[in-house]
């Protein structure tokens, strides 16, 4: 078992366990914390694929901005213990879990056991394309138009969030 394989299996196990804990906790704050752990594991997995820029952006944007926003909203709405919804195990949830498990088995079969063979990662090429300089070069030349459009998306999101969350003073 090489160091790379061991790193992958440790990070993957922690990611799957924390994802399961996210969807099963009653307290939303605990779900948010486990989701942050999941994002850190994913950042580690991106680093094993030599995607340095995406790994850092994952921590900065997802764990550092989006999850902080989630925790702010949870605390703003004061969803403490007194607001815990009593969710039992209904048959609907069992059917949903069963269907998702069936789809997962199909996906695992197609990806792992159906004879599809993928070439291994060319590490030197992956190291070349994962750097900030290379992604910046592509982002500002070949993908300039989508990049400018994302600035419009973010402006629309800011305006929308302010308008929706504003208290209407009637």
């Amino acid at each position: 078992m090489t160091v790379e394989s061991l790193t992958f299996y440790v990070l993957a196990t922690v990611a799957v366990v924390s994802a399961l804990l996210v969807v099963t906790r009653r307290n939303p704050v605990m779900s948010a914390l486990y989701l942050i752990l999941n994002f850190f594991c994913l950042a580690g997995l991106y680093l094993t694929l030599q995607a340095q820029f995406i790994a850092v952006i994952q921590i900065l944007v997802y764990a550092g901005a989006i999850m902080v926003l989630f925790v702010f909203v949870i605390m703003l709405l004061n969803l403490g213990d007194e607001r815990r919804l009593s969710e039992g195990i209904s048959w609907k949830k069992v059917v949903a879990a069963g269907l998702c498990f069936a789809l997962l088995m199909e996906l695992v079969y197609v990806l792992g056991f159906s004879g599809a063979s993928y070439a291994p990662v060319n590490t030197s090429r992956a190291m070349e394309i994962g750097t900030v300089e290379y992604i910046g070069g592509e982002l500002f030349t070949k993908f300039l138009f989508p990049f400018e459009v994302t600035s419009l998306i973010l402006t629309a999101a800011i305006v929308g969030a302010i308008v929706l969350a504003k208290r209407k003073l009637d």
Partner: protein
Amino acid sequence: MVEIQPYLILSATLFMIGAVGVLARRNAIIVFMSIELMLNSVNLSLVAFSAQLGDVTGQILVFFVMTVAAAEAAIGLAIIIALFRRKQTLNLDEINILKW
């Protein structure tokens, strides 16, 4: 020598766990977090293929997916706040005004 099949299987697993969260939970914020989990699993798949094919387009797409996910999280949480102010509940079973 990094093979990407374990990464793809991990991506499928995280996606399905997120799907179970969306379908089976009644708390709106947990549903939101499950949607973010699904988006992240797709990001992992994109980065794995980008590394394997030597094409940076996958990582550029991950950049845009993260941007759109951030915008969506902001607006979604604003909607949840507005909904909570109105109905004082986050249980999705009780948000049924559109039902006939």
